[in-house]
């Protein structure tokens, strides 16, 4: 990697490259708003898609929760939407499972990967490194549209006659591979699932390609790697993880697809009798799917959460008014987590019948990965020490992020040990764990990012009062929803069950009911957020260029930035991203692109 602070070497084809880089304003409605090449528009498109996806995913979770709390009570309106599987409003087990599968798939792929990574990353990574756009705007546009088509294909699974797939977001073979003999939803619906995820992989690979190249090659003058903001670092590391992870999931989906429609037997062993029919397959390995899936699946968890790490590390100092403690250590830990995430996939398979010795092998790196994660948390908490905290909504969500990440991370200690996993695997303990550490933490990262960057993206401020109510109620709500799931798990309450009505689990019903109330209320609280989002977009107070007195490049351009990000000005970077609590020209901070003496835009 060349140090970009050094003077520009003269390339033979520099003129051509500059011609290529020179941005022209987009022309026409389609180019401006639909098939836009502008990374900012693409980022917003990703975020809007994630918003639709999260609403769908949340409504699905309400339906599930309602059924779990009140298994015999008809859900109002369900009979009309799903006349066969929801006849009379009481959902059938297969409807429950299809809602669960779609909820998990939508949340993991189309919300937690798109919003914090593809959404915010697209909008802010180029600006934070001082580039005019991503390295390959056309690929970037394709990245979004391929992902979007993937989303539509997934939603189409709701509309096919046998319904949406019921094999969970993990789609374990052979259940997911043998076709409709295995049950409702496993026909066309499951095929659509495989196609959708394959498309998603292609979209995210194109995105990762852009993120990596842009970070390596398009940094502006003075923006050395060490001066990159933490959020840029997090997106950069995430895109490397994503590049590897999606490169593996894509072939896995191709193999699954061929097993389903091409008559091959990659994942289907011989001699299976399903619905009284001997299946015309032989020799495949169900564990092969599990290995491929989790080789992707565990890193995916970090794809969901690392951008949140970046956002917290980026936003917290701006409101603590002091730099992050141990910045290099922080980046090192994020990289270490990214690397280690490829060594632990087997911890999802302790009880899968793989060699028991490998369980020990996978358990060690899993426990080791807690060390960099612990360090990151300690660095954040240490950053709060001696701070001058400004309690904006964004800051609160960062602090909330730390709290829920700790809660979820600690339950990971249990599941990382095979000898305890043998009891807790497949119970609500796991559901509680991953919702805290991945679901809620990542959502808090998204919220923090939204409240922080909204002024830059739309040129208007969000309403802080509504925001604080949103935070406080959500924070209480998520603890009420997900903490009790750990108790259920300890009591042996298994997951992926559509009802707990018989003697075995009857004792858990009151707690399930409590969780359901909490989930419905917390869901309703999100309406505050949606209102805030829409109201502020059109009616919010006009945002200044740098409302938070922050330092990084996105705050050195107008809100919202022009199509080429900095207009005629080419930012030059003079310092690291974290100069808070110092004596600066306009307060206790110094901006990356403002030289010590002289105004904005003065070249070095």
């Amino acid at each position, binding site marked *: 990697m*060349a140090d970009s602070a050094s003077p520009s070497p003269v390339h033979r084809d520099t003129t051509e490259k*500059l011609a290529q880089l020179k941005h022209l304003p987009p022309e026409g409605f389609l180019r401006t708003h639909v098939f836009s090449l502008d990374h900012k528009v693409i980022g917003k498109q990703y975020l809007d898609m994630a918003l639709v996806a999260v609403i769908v995913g949340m409504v699905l979770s309400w339906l599930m929760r309602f059924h779990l709390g009140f298994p015999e009570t008809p859900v109002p309106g369900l009979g009309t939407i799903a006349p066969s599987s929801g006849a009379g409003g009481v959902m059938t087990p297969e409807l429950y499972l299809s809602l669960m599968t779609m909820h998990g798939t939508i949340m993991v792929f189309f919300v937690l990967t798109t919003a914090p990574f593809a959404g915010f990353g697209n909008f802010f990574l180029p600006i934070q490194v001082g580039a005019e756009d991503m390295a390959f705007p056309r690929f970037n546009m394709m990245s979004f549209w391929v992902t979007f088509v993937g989303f539509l294909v997934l939603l189409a699974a709701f509309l096919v006659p046998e319904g949406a797939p019921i094999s969970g977001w993990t789609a374990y073979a052979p259940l997911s591979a043998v076709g409709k003999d295995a049950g409702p939803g496993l026909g066309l619906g499951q095929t659509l699932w495989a196609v959708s995820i394959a498309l998603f992989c292609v979209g995210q690979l194109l995105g990762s*390609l852009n993120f990596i*190249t842009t970070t390596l090659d*398009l940094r502006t003058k003075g923006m050395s790697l060490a001066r990159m903001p933490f959020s840029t670092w997090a997106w950069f590391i995430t895109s490397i993880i994503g590049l590897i992870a999606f490169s*593996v999931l*894509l072939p896995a989906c191709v193999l699954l697809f061929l097993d389903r429609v091409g008559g091959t037997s990659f994942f289907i*062993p011989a001699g299976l009798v399903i619905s009284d029919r001997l299946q015309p397959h032989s*020799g495949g390995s169900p564990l*092969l799917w599990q290995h491929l899936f989790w080789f992707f699946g565990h890193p995916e968890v970090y794809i969901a959460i690392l951008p949140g790490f970046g956002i917290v590390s980026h936003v917290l100092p701006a409101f603590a008014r002091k730099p992050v403690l141990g910045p290099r250590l922080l980046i090192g830990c994020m990289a270490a987590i990214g690397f280690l995430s490829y060594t632990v996939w087997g911890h999802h398979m302790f009880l899968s019948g793989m060699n028991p010795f490998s369980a020990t092998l996978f358990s060690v790196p899993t426990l080791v990965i807690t060390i960099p994660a612990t360090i990151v948390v300690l660095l954040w908490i240490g950053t709060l020490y001696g701070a001058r905290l400004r309690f904006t909504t964004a800051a609160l969500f960062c602090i909330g992020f730390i709290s829920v990440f700790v809660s979820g991370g600690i339950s990971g200690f249990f599941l990382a040990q095979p000898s305890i996993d043998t009891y807790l695997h497949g119970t609500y303990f796991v559901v509680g764990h991953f919702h805290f550490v991945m679901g809620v933490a990542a959502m808090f990262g998204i919220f923090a990012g939204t409240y922080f960057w909204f002024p830059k993206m739309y040129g208007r401020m969000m309403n802080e009062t509504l925001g604080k109510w949103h935070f406080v109620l959500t924070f209480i709500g998520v603890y009420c929803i997900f903490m009790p799931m750990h108790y259920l798990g300890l009591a042996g309450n298994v997951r992926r069950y559509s009802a707990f009505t018989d003697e075995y689990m009857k004792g858990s019903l009151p707690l399930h009911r409590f969780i359901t109330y909490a989930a419905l209320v917390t869901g309703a609280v999100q309406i505050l957020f949606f209102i805030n989002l829409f109201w502020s977009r059109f009616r919010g107070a006009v945002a200044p260029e740098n409302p938070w007195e922050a330092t990084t490049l996105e705050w050195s351009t107008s809100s919202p930035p022009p199509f080429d990000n900095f207009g005629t000005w080419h930012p030059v970077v003079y310092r690291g991203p974290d100069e808070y609590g110092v004596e600066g020209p306009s307060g206790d901070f110094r901006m990356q692109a403002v030289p010590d003496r002289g105004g904005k835009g003065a070249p070095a």
Partner: protein
Amino acid sequence: MSTANPVITSSPSRTGVWVGIAAITMSFAAFTSAMVVRQGAAPDWLHFRLPPLLYLNTVILLASSATLERCRRRAASGAGPAAAIPWLAASITLGLLFVVGQALAWRDLAAQGLYLATGPSSAFFYLLTAVHAIHLLGGVVALIYVWFRLVRTEANNVPSALGATVLYWHFVGVLWLYLLLILAIRL
């Protein structure tokens, strides 16, 4: 426009191709390990002789790499786009010829009664050759794009896309050699 322009220290399209190469390599590593696992999973692996046509195809693909390299040198030598374009056309033709050859090899295999669903070995054969051909066709599209660039740029200007595409094309060739090797060993 102001004086300070963004500093370009290396070519994004080249970096991009390297990143793409990493991703594709990872995908084929996944396919390969699936193949190894699948072969070990059950005693139903059918060994068969690779269609001899594959070796001719290999020669064609290597030749296309050579002509493309020639094209790149020509363009870089300052002889102008006109001198490079015939070589580019030759490479595209050879590339397409390779794909046609692969299709003929499929027909050869099908004539022996080996289809996608016949057994795991034939399944991997069709799968790997098809996925490789898709990547190669992607390269052809890129070469056609480069053609347009060459026609449009003035003399003495080498589009950076050319260097990047040549790199990608060589990679696809090397990838094919690798695939041929494991197919020859395993099938």
